[in-house]
């Protein structure tokens, strides 16, 4: 069973797995500042993963993507979020997660699902299987974060981690044109702007960033 792995594979595997682990920490964490720190860590691991892939594939565009991830996702966006949280004075808002234990269990199931969905690839290219199942796991965990967070900041952090998962998937694809990376970084930035606008408005209207206070205004009620 055990076969000697190359160092190249080992490091890539470790970094991708590290991203899944950090995703779990995001899922588990329920304090806003800690969440912001973890999303920065998530992006940092992504930067390392992208850098490693860039070095392996000798692809300049991946170096650029890694630099983008470092500048925007690991530094700028967490900083802006931090400022936003501070300015809105919601540092103390410990958001309610729908049962940490259940969420985690659900997360594990999603990782299992990601592995199983990609299972047909295992026979053909185990390397690709592993790459994609890790990336898919990160994406799905990000979606889960978005669903389980009631807080707008929590949801945006979920969105950012989904983006990071996409980057991870794109990095594994050899020679994937830079277009995708650029647009993802761009979309994250746009998302942030949109979010900033909305957050300030939500805040102005309700004195809270709990999006569930919006439920009163749903149209479906008879």
């Amino acid at each position, binding site marked *: 069973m055990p076969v000697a792995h190359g160092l190249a*594979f080992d490091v890539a595997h470790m970094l991708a797995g590290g991203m*899944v*682990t950090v995703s*779990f920490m995001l899922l*588990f964490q329920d304090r806003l500042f800690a969440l912001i720190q973890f999303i920065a860590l998530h992006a940092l691991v992504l930067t390392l993963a992208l850098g490693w892939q860039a070095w392996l594939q000798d692809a300049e565009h991946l170096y650029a993507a890694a630099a983008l991830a470092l500048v925007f996702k690991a530094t700028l966006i967490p900083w802006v979020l931090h400022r936003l949280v501070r300015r809105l004075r919601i540092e103390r808002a410990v958001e309610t997660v729908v049962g940490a234990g259940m969420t*985690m269990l659900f*997360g594990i199931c999603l*990782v299992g699902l990601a*592995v199983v969905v990609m299972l047909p690839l295992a026979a053909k290219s185990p390397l690709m299987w*592993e790459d994609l199942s890790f990336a898919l796991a990160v994406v799905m965990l990000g979606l889960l974060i978005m669903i389980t967070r009631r807080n707008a900041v929590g949801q945006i952090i979920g969105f950012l981690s989904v983006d990071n998962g996409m980057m991870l998937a794109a990095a594994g694809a050899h020679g994937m044109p830079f277009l995708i990376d650029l647009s993802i970084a761009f979309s994250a930035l746009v998302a942030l702007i949109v979010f900033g606008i909305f957050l300030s408005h939500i805040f102005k209207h309700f004195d809270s960033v709990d999006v569930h206070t919006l439920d009163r205004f749903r149209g479906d009620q008879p």
Partner: protein
Amino acid sequence: MAIIQYLLLQGFQMLLVLAVAPLLIGIVRRVKARLLRRIGPSVFQPYRDLIRLARKDVVVAHNASWLFLVTPYIVFAAIWVAAALVPTYALGLIFSWSADIIVIVGLLALARFFQALAGLDVGTAFGGIGTSREMMIASLAEPAMLMIVFTLSLLAQSTQLSSIAHYMMTVQVGLRVSCGLALMGLVMVAIAENGRVPVDNPATHLELTMVHEAMILEYSGRHLALIELASALKLTLYLSMLVCVFVPWGMALTDAGPLALLVGVVLYPAKIAAGGAALALLEVTVAKMRVFRVVDFLNFALMLGLLAALLLFVSRSI
């Protein structure tokens, strides 16, 4: 002749852990004190404390039953045996076939069972609180521990610590995410089981927060010495286990020469001391959590174990 040599090696291991355990506690306290800019007691202070306690008279409550009196001996014996089974400086010792992780978990559970009974025996409020909290933590920590054991034994295809360590040393395992997750989970379980900082504070006697200390509040004299030594041994056991699974390098292989054994004997206390220093660093950087948060903490450890097992499945076929 050979059998005597094997027995001697095993016997040496039993004495080694017994000797190292108080030293480990001393190191942790000393490093913690230095990190807090205090001078702190000498690293040998726990030995002195134990000797002092052993000399003192035992004070027993009027309504204590025989259970209260035998518990310290049972606890000490069970934990000492468990600690002596974990490979420390050499692999393949004569009793290593019984150094099964599940046996070790069982021995620890036996000790905990008696300690809990003794805590309830005298009927004071603190004993009751401490016991109920200890059992809550234990009931959460054990599944997590078993999940991690499961992962490691899936990887090495054995539940014997000696074989797992052998596997880790000889086979090119590579950087496995599963191993990293199992390590994290095991550290979390070890912290909870030993009542270290984020879960319980061993240095406090604040009634609302203590867990382990509340349970042994009624003990004194040599009984207390045995229990203190047993908890030091338990910490040593967990550190040895971590060290032997994740940093096995330097341990003497089966039937190795005297030089390899010597290297093992010298390296083992060094590794344990490093582990103790790391623990001290962790304890000064994190704050103790509320008792109800311990549930989440241990659930997280369980999830890490599950995730490790799952990811093992992914990285296995390559």
